[in-house]
């Protein structure tokens, strides 16, 4: 046995944790090595000295007042209120017994579910994309009808935004939620219409659809909480860009086109 290995075994030797064989080796080394013998005596001396420490013993009055002093520090609410927070304690207890792999499994499952939901959202958007009919004439008729419907829905939506009453916050909040959903649909529709409105004479209509798309995106991005300042900005945009006038003009133009078409189809009327 070396001196180093002997001294690193002092704790085990002191605690009587060594095997008989190891004990015999230690005894033999300590008998033959003065340096280790001295180190061992100093080790024991240190412990013997340190355990001579006297403890301060508080008197009985200290112990009698212990609870009163502690009670002053206890939370102000009555201990009986603890039963009200028992549910989270139960949940914490339950969580603490779940092994680590349980959390990993739950995390993986959560990721899968999130991925599935996100996938569904993309699928919904794809489904709402309007396909362009193969026949060009039919296509233009369809685009015209879709544009009319788009302008009509946008106008109704913007009227709702312009007439939001900030005094009735609860009502305004529920309106904004509904308007955000409609706006999202109209933004998707605008993306298609901007590419479909590619005929000569449809440029102004295309610009209007683009302007509307920007405003609709602002509505879509409104906070879930009723955000008076953002609504005010949208109202100003609608007003400054003269959106209602442009929609009205476009609707009049569409109506005239329809009248002309009807006239040509039935000249006697």
């Amino acid at each position: 046995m070396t001196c180093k290995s002997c001294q690193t075994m002092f704790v085990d030797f002191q605690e009587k944790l060594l095997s008989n064989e190891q004990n015999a080796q230690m005894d033999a080394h300590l008998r033959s090595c003065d340096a280790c013998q001295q180190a061992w005596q100093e080790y024991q001396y240190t412990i013997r000295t340190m355990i001579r420490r006297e403890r301060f013993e508080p008197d009985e009055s200290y112990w009698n007042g212990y609870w009163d002093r502690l009670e002053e520090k206890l939370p102000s609410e009555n201990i009986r209120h603890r039963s009200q927070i028992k549910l989270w304690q139960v949940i914490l207890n339950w969580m603490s017994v779940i092994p680590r792999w349980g959390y990993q499994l739950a995390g993986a499952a959560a990721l899968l579910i999130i991925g599935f939901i996100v996938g569904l959202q993309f699928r919904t958007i794809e489904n709402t994309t309007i396909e362009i009919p193969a026949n060009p004439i039919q296509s233009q008729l369809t685009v015209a009808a879709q544009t009319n419907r788009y302008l009509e829905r946008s106008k109704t939506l913007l009227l709702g935004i312009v007439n939001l009453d900030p005094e009735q916050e609860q009502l305004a909040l529920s309106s904004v939620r509904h308007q955000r959903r409609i706006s999202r649909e109209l933004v998707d529709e605008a993306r298609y219409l901007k590419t479909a409105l590619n005929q000569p004479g449809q440029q102004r209509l295309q610009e209007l659809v683009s302007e509307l798309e920007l405003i609709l995106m602002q509505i879509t991005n409104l906070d879930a909480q009723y955000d008076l300042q953002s609504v005010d900005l949208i109202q100003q945009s609608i007003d400054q860009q003269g959106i209602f006038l442009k929609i009205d003009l476009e609707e009049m133009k569409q109506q005239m086109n329809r009248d002309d078409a009807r006239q040509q189809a039935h000249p006697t009327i």
Partner: protein
Amino acid sequence: MSDDNVLIHAASRGDASAFRTLVERYKKTVYYIAYDLTGQHHTAEDLSQDVFLKMYRGLGTFRGDATLRTWLYRVTVNTYLSQQRKKAFTALNFFSDHKKDDCDLTDVIPAEDEHSPEKMAEAVMMQTHIQAALNKLSPRERTVFTLRHYQDLSLKEIADIMDVRIGTVKSTLFRAIQRMQKALAFYKLDFNA
């Protein structure tokens, strides 16, 4: 279910008298661990009361895997180590370790020695040196030494309380004793006198 567990169950359901019974039952145990760790009466009082406040808040989380005594040891040690970590970040550490806290060392000397000024002085000197040696230890070394030699816990119990391997406890204890050995060497002649 042990008597302690019945009281814990009752206390967690809002029974204030059950909580008080637990405090009365364990106040000395917790105070003396705290005193052995800190070496100062008022600090020990604050630490022990912090432990009972934690017990009060965590009654619902006590699962009964360990005895309440072991659980209180663990909370006391963790609270002490956590406070020491916080103290380490303050410049006050030096002063708080060296200032005379609240209980004069003469308070801990047995009463029969009061009549002999020489013995009294000798005993005070020894206690001063012992305290100085303890103050040389890091909080973890002091905790291991205290639990083993002042609280008389086994190395296995200390490992469980501190949530470390038994080998770590042994090496920490060895280091602590070596450090105190150096601190006491200077005063060795005084002790032998």
